Structure formats: C-alpha cells, structure tokens
C-alpha cells in the first residue's frame, strides 16, 4: 500500500443469506483509491455497486447481509475487523457518504442547522456556537447565499437540489479523507445535476478528498471521474482510466454499455443493445457472469469463471478474450 492510497479494498466478499442459501452480492471485489482522486464505480441495478459501498462503511443490512471475506484498509486499519464504536467515529468523519435520495436522508423533524451541528459536535468535540459558525460557512461553500436562514429551515422547505447541497455540506464539514457518493444526482433535474457536479469537482480540489462515485450514468462518469471500475453480477469486470474506458473498452459488457446510450452529440439511426437482462444474484450463469448476453461468448466462458487479470499497470479486465492462450481463439470467434 503506497503512501497516498486512502482506501484499499482487497477481495471483499459480501453475501445475503436466506433459508440457508448464500447469495453473493459482492464477489471478490478489489480496488484502491488515491488521495484527491475520483473513482467511479459503474454498473446497472443488481451489479453490487451500492452493496460494495455499504460494505466499506460497514452498513450492510443485518442480519441477512454479512461481509464474509476480504479486507478494507483505510488509514492502515482493516475496517472489516473494527468494532461498532470505532466505526461510529469513522463514519461521517473520515469517510462520509451522500445518498441518492436527498428527500429521505435528512430528518424531517429537525432543522438543517440542528442536523449540521449535531455531527460536528459529535466528531470534533466543539461548542454549539463554533459548530453553528462552521455550519454556516459550509452552507456558503456549497452555494447558499442566505446560509443563516437555511440553518433555521426544515428539510421540506428546500428543493431536491438544495437538499443535496445540504447533504454535501454536511458530508464535507468534517474534512473527510474519503467521500462516497451513491448516485448523488440521479433524483435531480439536469440543470441541477450540472450545479451539483460542478460543486463536487470544485470541492474535491479544494479539500483534496478522495471521491468514490457510484452511478449507472456514464454521462456523469465522463464529467467527473478519473478512474473507472465497472461492475457486473457482483464482480469487477474492468478497471481503467477514464480515457481508456471511453476510447478503448476491453470487456464486452463495457463496450455494450457504451454503445447502448444515446449520445447528445451527433445522431444514430439505431442503438446497439445488450440482449437479455441483468441476472439476479440467485440466477447467475455458470462460468462468466456475462456469458448469456455476450456477443463473443466462447466454450470456455460457459465452463469456467474468468479471473481479473492485469492488462497493464493501470488496466484490469475479467475476460477470456484478453487472456493469453485463449486470446487467439477469441479473436477467431470475433471475426467469424
């Protein structure tokens, strides 16, 4: 683990248990985030992207869900092994999280001020007056001109975009080393989304926080991320820099995903689409998880699960097409 790595996730495995069957929702996920870097985790519903973030925060819904293996190194400590009391100190202080629904993540019966102050007082052990001052400054940072009035307002008085900005202000008020943003703009309109993305970009520079951006929207990824992890069926299928992902995707799923979104620039007659639907965790195929929808599927893909291999120092891919030995066979198949 190098000096500036903030978070290092190694072989993380989270499962849900029902009637003695084990459903792996996060399956051998590894990645790391550097200081000041924005890493995007991309995937469709059921890909395990949100469960990965909840596992990092140790917020997996229990008793059904459980982290069954792997390590999450943060600040040299393995978060998986920490007790609840230590985790309280980590959450909202060292690692903050922004959720998709700004409507449900604020408490409707407390004012914005009370909610901002509470966590500042808990984590920084400061007086109410100091916390109030910091709260006002944070609200100004995220673009509220009347921060004083907002502190006295209840959440229902604010619009969706304003609430999300309050959430960002709260998440950043303790100078976290890592910010996890789970679909931060999905519930918002495009013009508001643009405001929030600009704000996140500005703040990550200013505070030098690392960001994990979890989203299904490749447009948001293109706007904000530096590195991308693509997840499918609970596994990482590809990891690469933002340019590599968009210019030269290696995994057939990444390629399919990029081709299936309508582009605002230019016009297409027809969209490419990935056949079939995302498999549920209890319904994963044998071999590669993507085999049933893959246009390049080979015999070996139906039998054995591919491993995540290092393509070069910055790229990883989980696909037989890019493994030495099977590669030639795959290309023949591709051209036929």
């Amino acid at each position: 683990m190098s000096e500036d790595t903030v978070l290092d996730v190694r072989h993380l495995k989270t499962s849900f248990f029902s009637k003695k069957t084990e459903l792996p929702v996060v399956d051998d996920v590894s990645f790391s985030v550097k200081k000041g870097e924005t890493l995007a985790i991309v995937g469709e519903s059921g890909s395990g992207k949100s469960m990965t973030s909840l596992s990092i925060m140790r917020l997996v819904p229990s008793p059904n869900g459980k982290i069954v293996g792997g390590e999450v190194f943060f600040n040299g400590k393995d978060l998986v092994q920490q007790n609840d009391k230590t985790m309280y100190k980590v959450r909202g202080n060292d690692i903050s999280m922004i959720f998709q629904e700004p409507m449900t993540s604020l408490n409707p019966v407390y004012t914005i001020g009370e909610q901002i102050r509470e966590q500042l007082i808990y984590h920084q052990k400061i007086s109410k007056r100091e916390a109030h001052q910091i709260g006002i400054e944070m609200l100004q940072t995220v673009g509220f001109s009347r921060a004083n009035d907002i502190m006295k307002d209840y959440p229902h008085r604010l619009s969706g975009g304003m609430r999300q900005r309050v959430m960002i202000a709260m998440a950043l008020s303790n100078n976290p080393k890592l910010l996890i943003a789970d679909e931060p703009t999905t519930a918002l309109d495009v013009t508001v989304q643009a405001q929030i993305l600009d704000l996140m970009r500005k703040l990550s520079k200013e505070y030098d926080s690392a960001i994990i951006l979890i989203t299904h929207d490749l447009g948001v990824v293109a706007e904000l991320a530096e590195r991308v992890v693509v997840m499918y069926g609970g596994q990482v299928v590809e990891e690469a820099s933002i340019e590599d992902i968009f210019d030269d995707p290696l995994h057939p799923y990444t390629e399919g995903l990029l081709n299936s979104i309508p582009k605002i620039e230019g016009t297409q007659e027809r969209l490419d689409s990935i056949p079939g639907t995302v498999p549920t965790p209890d319904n994963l195929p044998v071999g590669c998880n993507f085999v049933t929808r893959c246009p390049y599927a080979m015999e070996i893909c139906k039998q054995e699960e591919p491993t995540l291999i290092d393509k070069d120092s910055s790229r990883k891919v989980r696909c037989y097409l890019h493994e030495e030995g099977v590669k030639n066979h795959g290309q023949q198949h591709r051209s036929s």
Partner: protein
Amino acid sequence: MVNNIEVLERGPEKSTLEQEKILQIDNLKKHFPVKSGVLQRTKGHVRAVDGINFYIKKGESFGLVGESGCGKSTAGRTIMRLYEPTEGKITFDGEDISTQKERHLFKLRREMQMIFQDPFSSLNPRKTVGSMLVEPLKVHGLYKGSKERKEKCQEIMSRVGLNPSFLNRYPHEFSGGQRQRIGIARALVLEPKMIVADEPVSALDVSVQSQVLNLLDDLQVDFDLTYLFIAHDLSVVKHFSDRIGVMYLGNMAEVAEKTDLYDDPLHPYTQALLSAVPRSHPRERKRERILLEGELPSPANPPNGCVFHTRCPHVMDHCKEIEPKMQEVKPNHYVACHLYE
C-alpha cells in the same frame, strides 16, 4: 396566446400540412385548484399547463421535454383526456375532442393509447398478462371469438419480443424491461393511431433502455404509429424524436426539428438545458456551461411576463411585463422569446 395559431398555420405547404396533422393543440390549459380549510374552498390554481400550442404530423415522433414540474406529463394526460382541459382545443384526426363527453371518448380511447413510466405500478399484480391484453379487446368488441382474441394477444406478445406462452403469467414474474414490453403490448393490442409515451424508459437500466427504444422504433414502422414521447432525458429524446417541444413552467419555450433544436437552440432556457446535459466523452468536459441561477418558481404563482425571466441570463425590462408570443424565427423553428422580435 390565441393568435399563435395563425403563426403555426402559416407557410405555403399549409394545405398538405393540414392533411398531415394528426393532432393539433391550441392554447391548451390545465389548472388544478388548490383547496384548503375546513370548507375546502379554492384558494388558487396550480397552472400546470398554461396555454401551449403545437401539432404532430402523422407517422412522426414528437418529443416533449422539460424538467420536473414543467407540465409535460400533465400535457400528455390532458391530451389523452385523462384530465379535463381547463381551456383550449385538442383536435385529433380532424375532430375536436376537448369538449366531448366521456361516452363519446370511447372511440378515442381505442385510437390513442398510453405507455406509462413505471412498469411496476402500471400493471395490475392480480391479473395475468393474458387477461390484461384481452380486456381491451372485449371492451371494444373486437375479435368476436375468444380463440381469435387469444391469437391476437399471442401475435402482439411475440411482436413486442415476449414469448406468447407467458400470457398465463403474472406481472411479478417479469423483469422491468419485460414489464415495459407488456405495457407496450397492452397499448398496441387495440391497434391505435397514436401512442402517448410518458417517460417509457426512464425506470429501466441502460442496457435494457436501448432495447425498448429500438422496439418502439420498429413498431412505429410496422403499425404506422405516431408518438408523443414525453421524457426528461435530452439524449434519449434527441435519439427518438423527429420534432421536439421544450416546456418550462407550463409554457412552451421552443418547438423545432430535432437537428435544428440541438445545433442551434434559440431560447435561453433551451440553451441552458442543453449545456447542462453530461457529454458522452470525458474530453468534452471542459466546455462552457450556462448555469441557471435560482430555483424553479412555483406554478401556483408563476412570474409575470415571460415565465423564465427570473432565471434568464439575457433578461430585459419588458420581459418582466409582456408575455412573449410564439413565433417562427426560422423555417419550422418556433420560439417564445423577446430576443427574437
């Protein structure tokens, strides 16, 4: 607002255009009363749709875009006559349907069908797919024998890409994309002339979204359909529509052909909206963006004059008092803005 109709009908191709039009909307308004107190007195009105004009040609896809609360869904539902229009005229296939009584709308229901956003709540969980598809056929007295009706349903099922044997299944047995296909099958079974699709793909995963968009494209050719496509995603609307109308706070800001609108947006709101859409490649990241200040005003109390003047970067004095009229600035490119007068 009323004299906008003349503007829309101008041009040498008027007579052919008249024939081509399947739907014409003139000064359509839908206001919802706000009631409060013990006596439920009306305290005001939410002007969800406040005087819009546009037309749709036969076989065309007309996209209606705007942010949440702009009235695009209300417009769609009012055109379907699911809501009673407050004012204005809806001409469908040469007939004024805005004032017809409910029992006269029977024929309209067959010719104009709707696809809804949420495939989870728009299907009855207690009914099989088969009974959902057969019911409209029974109601409208089509295909007399039950065997023929079943054949029709099977044909529609395979047409939307579902296995005909799924007719005996219940909605919970299907994925989101499949449910949306069922919703499309239900709309198609009566062989309508026009389909109002209200955010048909926004609840779907990206990889499934493109499947459904392609399907709607194919069906348009096969069934000779006209679409009113309501969506908030500007990339999807651009891909799917021929002409597009942009709504803001119950008003139509701009109507144009798709390429015109995206290459040369005229209304300041359209410009801001388009510049806010995330680009599909990281190298486009450093472009100039027009960020809108402030919040969307309440439709219960819209600003005077141009409804966009409170957030417009080009606001002038008379924008605050005089409501701009829709005018044809370029051929087939209509905009409601004082900048172009």
